[in-house]
């Protein structure tokens, strides 16, 4: 711990809502930030389901300095710090002969650009997602390769959409073509995962002993798993491999935690006590957790599903007691269209909170938002038509000075959304030749 201020002291006062003095001096002390001396770029993907009211989302003018359309109007404070990218498509979310299931496909393909296999059973198959490409390359630099956040549990009953497994509609992050990365929906649990449970009453020596014992438990179970491997059939092997991978990743993380003493100024941070009743609070608190993780350099890659694809949540707080999915099938009914806009604007209001907060956090070179690339949007254009071209996509943050913001870019129809991801991966320092259905890099970002 030497030059670092011990985390225990740092977290004191956790649980008060009172702002502590901003311990800015701590931030550069974070082992990584100080040793690397270079700007750290972060990447986040935020997803909303059921399409967006495109006429109220798309700016009327092309180029710089566009006027904010209605759905985007909550973003006025951070105007100039994001761009709207029009014309991008996720072709593999279309049915391509597989029939219905646009909701499931659009979430599955959103970050992968791959056509998911139609199945409600065991043989799910998609592709690796853009965030995980980055996580697998950069993961060794931070305690958590990536974090996956959401506000709704994976659906618990039935197949989720027309014969597609629930795995497709409730995950956008895929570690491999068969393994979605489970998301956490309880902000308290995210906090505990990132920072421990705030209970640091144990004496240091007993904590060290505990961690030594926990390590011996890991050794024991790895040996168990190895012996088991020889006694089971191929399908069981696959499950056991998941177990191996998970335990190994935890071992690596524990080793990293020994090395890196994550510190962060907890100024004004609300330590969550659970899942807030209020949906806006829930989204914001999850956003806070993501920001905290970025600030402390616990991870550089995040995904955040505001809701699962096809969600039928109601939005009484903005005058929509009906379900979101029901309203998205507006059939051009003006009342439903209006309600869909209300929902879309509600989501963007929460996005505004997150972006404003990121913009307010100072880092050595500019703000946290300046050093990030935040993609916001979904895999369906119009919720009524279920189209997967002309997607609503917004890119916020300047990617450590590699992205020009404040522009409305219109791309040729059917430009793969994955081209954008390749461009972002470049800026993360993870140059990638192809991903899903990409055809090249996306131009005009700078």
């Amino acid at each position: 711990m030497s030059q670092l201020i011990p985390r225990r002291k740092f977290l004191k006062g956790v649980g008060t809502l009172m702002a502590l003095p901003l311990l800015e001096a701590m931030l550069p002390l974070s082992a990584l930030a100080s040793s690397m001396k270079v700007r750290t770029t972060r990447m986040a993907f935020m997803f909303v389901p059921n399409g967006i009211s495109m006429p109220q989302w798309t700016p009327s003018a092309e180029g710089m300095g566009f006027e904010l359309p209605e759905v985007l109007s909550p973003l006025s404070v951070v105007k100039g710090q994001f761009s709207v990218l029009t014309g991008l498509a996720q072709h593999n979310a279309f049915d391509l002969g597989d029939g219905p299931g646009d909701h499931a496909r659009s979430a599955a393909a959103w970050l992968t650009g791959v056509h998911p296999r139609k199945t409600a059973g065991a043989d799910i198959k998609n592709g690796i997602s853009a965030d995980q490409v980055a996580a697998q390359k950069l993961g060794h630099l931070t305690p958590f390769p990536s974090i996956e956040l959401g506000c709704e549990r994976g659906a618990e009953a039935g197949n989720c959409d027309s014969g597609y497994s629930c795995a497709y509609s409730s995950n956008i992050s895929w570690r491999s073509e068969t393994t979605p990365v489970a998301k956490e929906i309880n902000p308290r649990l995210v906090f505990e995962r990132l920072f421990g449970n705030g209970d640091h009453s144990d004496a240091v020596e007993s904590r060290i002993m505990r961690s030594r014992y926990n390590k011996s438990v890991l050794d024991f179970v790895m040996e168990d798993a190895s012996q088991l491997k020889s006694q089971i059939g191929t399908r069981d092997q696959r499950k056991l491999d998941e177990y191996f991978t998970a335990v190994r990743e935890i071992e690596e993380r524990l080793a990293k935690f020994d090395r890196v003493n994550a510190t962060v100024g907890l100024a004004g941070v609300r330590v969550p006590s659970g899942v807030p009743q209020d949906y806006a609070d829930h989204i914001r608190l999850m956003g806070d957790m993501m920001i905290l993780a970025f600030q402390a350099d616990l991870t550089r890659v995040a995904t955040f599903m505001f809701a699962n694809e096809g969600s039928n949540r109601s939005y009484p707080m903005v005058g929509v007691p009906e379900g979101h999915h029901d309203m998205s099938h507006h059939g051009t009914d003006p009342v439903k269209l209006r309600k869909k806009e209300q929902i879309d604007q509600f989501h963007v209001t929460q996005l505004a909170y997150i972006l404003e907060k990121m913009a307010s956090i100072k880092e050595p070179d500019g703000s946290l938002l300046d050093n990030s690339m935040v993609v916001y949007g979904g895999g369906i254009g119009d919720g009524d038509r279920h189209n997967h071209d002309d997607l609503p996509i917004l890119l916020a943050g300047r990617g450590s000075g590699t992205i020009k913001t404040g522009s409305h870019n219109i791309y040729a129809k059917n430009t793969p959304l994955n081209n954008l991801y390749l461009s972002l991966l470049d800026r993360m320092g993870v140059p990638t030749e192809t991903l899903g259905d990409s055809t090249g890099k996306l131009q005009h970002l700078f």
Partner: protein
Amino acid sequence: MLESKYFVLGFAGAFLTAAAISPSAFHSHLAQKTATASKPSFASSVTPVIKVYCITCHSGAKPPAGIDLSAYVNGTNFAANNAMWERISRNVSTGHMPPDGMPQPTKAQRAAMVTWLETTLSGNCKLKDPGRVTMRRLNRQEYNNTIRDLVGLDLHLADDFPSDDVGYGFDNIGDVLSISPLLMEKYLKAAEVVADRAIVVPEAKPMHFEADSMKLTAGVSVSDQNQVFFFSNGQASIERYFTLAGDYKLRALACGQQAGPEPAKMAFIVDDQVVQTVEVKALEKHPEEYEISVPLEAGKHRIALAYTNDYYKPGPPVEDRNLIVRNLEIIKPPLKLSALPESHKNIIFITPVSDNWRPAAKQILTRFAYRAFRRPPTPSEVDRLMQIADYVHKDGQPFERSIQLGVQAILSSPHFLFRVEADNQSQSLDSYELASRLSYFLWGSMPDNELFALADSGQIQKPEILKAQVRRMLKDPRSNSLADNFAEEWLNLRKLALINPDPAQFPDFDEKMRAAMMTETKMFFNGVVQNDRSVIDFIDAKYSYINGQLAKHYGIDGVAGDEFRKVSLVGTPRAGLLTQGSVLTLTSNPTRTSPVKRGKWVLEEILNAPLPPPPPNVGVLPDDGKQVAAATLRQKMEVHRKNPMCATCHKKMDPLGFSLENFDATGRWRAKDGDDPIDSSGVLPDGTKFKGAPELCSILIKKKADFVAGLSEKLLTYAIGRGVESYDKCSVDDIAQTCESNGYHFSALVNAIVMSDPFRKKRVTGGKVK
């Protein structure tokens, strides 16, 4: 479920080509001539139909539903593609294919084709392949139940685990349940928590909390020297789980910045109750210890120190009284055998004699591993557990700490987290595997001592013993897990938690009512299970279990209070599951009923006849102002059903749903929708006219064979933790048959499943069983 449940019919494709029907389709009489008296064959029963009625759409580069029949038109080459032919057979048999508006085969042609396909397909199951379930990890409910039964503590740790993956409609499917690093992390943490709480480690050292590590309210902050400074009335607290019940001492090191007429006062608070308030007379920089004594039950407690007499007088001279706390110590009660929790005594069932601790540790860990792994541990496993115990012992730690870490390792092992069934040359499950299958099927938990004993002796393999166990287990309250896990998923009850009826329209619906609806359906299900009623009760029972709130909601007199009780529904329009508030609400939209969703639910859950999902780009009523403005929902839906794209399915769903229109979106009875009277009549595709819920019920009763077949398939899926495949078809038929011929008793259904090959056997390595 059978593969056929997931078929996708290429509606769009089928209808788009409807205008371009091949001329040959109009000459169907030609095809009939091919029927001869000789033994039916593929060429005589199937080819003629597909040639004339199917191939028009089902061929080419992009055949609907991916079904290309062009390879089959000219010959007898019935390929071994069971799943596809089963799908075809079902769709032709239900009249789903060919779609309306296309030329239809005659009844005789249809029957000949379906009969031949069914006979041939079921012939395949003479191969008696019992299938192979993939190693299942415990799902959240199973984890909670297993920990409860293993250590005797109902900790509900899995409530914080990520959702379990769902396949084939259930969340206990081996193939689908995965382990992410996030989940593994939670398993490891949970194992540590269980070991910590189940076992008391005697430690003379008090628990010590530096004040600056405690949770502080407003008015309290940390000062320079890691002391906590109460500058106005406020609290510093900790929350801890106390394994041991008894008299604890709470000791705080504190002092005051004294001012005003009295010394600073500090209250010791346990769970929001002031235990004692002390005067802190010590002066700043000279803190003293203040101690009180308090009895605590085992469990979680919040312990707080509070400053209660803040004093401030603006000067000059300023008078300011404040409290300063350095630390809090909690001194445990002396370890008395009687005070040890049951969990501790159950695990540490023998104590070591003098210093020779190893034999006792070995017995303890062997027994715990046996119960946790649900089979006797191997000598090598026990050896490695003893290595862990030795490792702890070498640190000079107490014996109990060694056991604690052994328990933690056992609970983190794949042998605990997965239900492993060995891959060997035996077709029968071994006795321990069978005991676990039984206990997880009926209890969602580990075997109890009786099952373990029967596994030890091998008796469990005997059919009469199995049957006796089923009887015993269904009567045991642990069989509630069938309601919590099976029924919740079968009936889609978990959706009820996500539905939010519009409070403006349905002010009576609140969280209490949501919970009451859930309780009603689960008690009803449990009633059938534990009283061994007929499964047909699910359709037509003239009783339910309700409390005062639901009775009022349903308009039933004479039921008051929060307590649920069995109530007769005779003389009411309600019967069975279908008219329960839960089902009626979860099949509604937030602002109105949805006859479509209700009809779909009846088809899927009761009639075992799921429909394909709607084709893309539909779900939109025609956009001409006049039609959309039509007064009632029914009129709007009639418009919908005139569209041939929609009609095929909606003419099946809508009449079923409309018959329930007298129940509003929260299941309350109504005579009018707005100003319009309710019309609950309908006509089924076969011309049957009916009206209202009671007549719907009579129709469903006539189709109870379909219901029992569907229930058999779903309960089998749940029982074996894998999708039901084509080779299981005979077993499913047998199970349904056995249930029927045994008076439809729930136990008959369960017995039939337990005695079936898919439940008791496994495919041996290298493929099919001879």
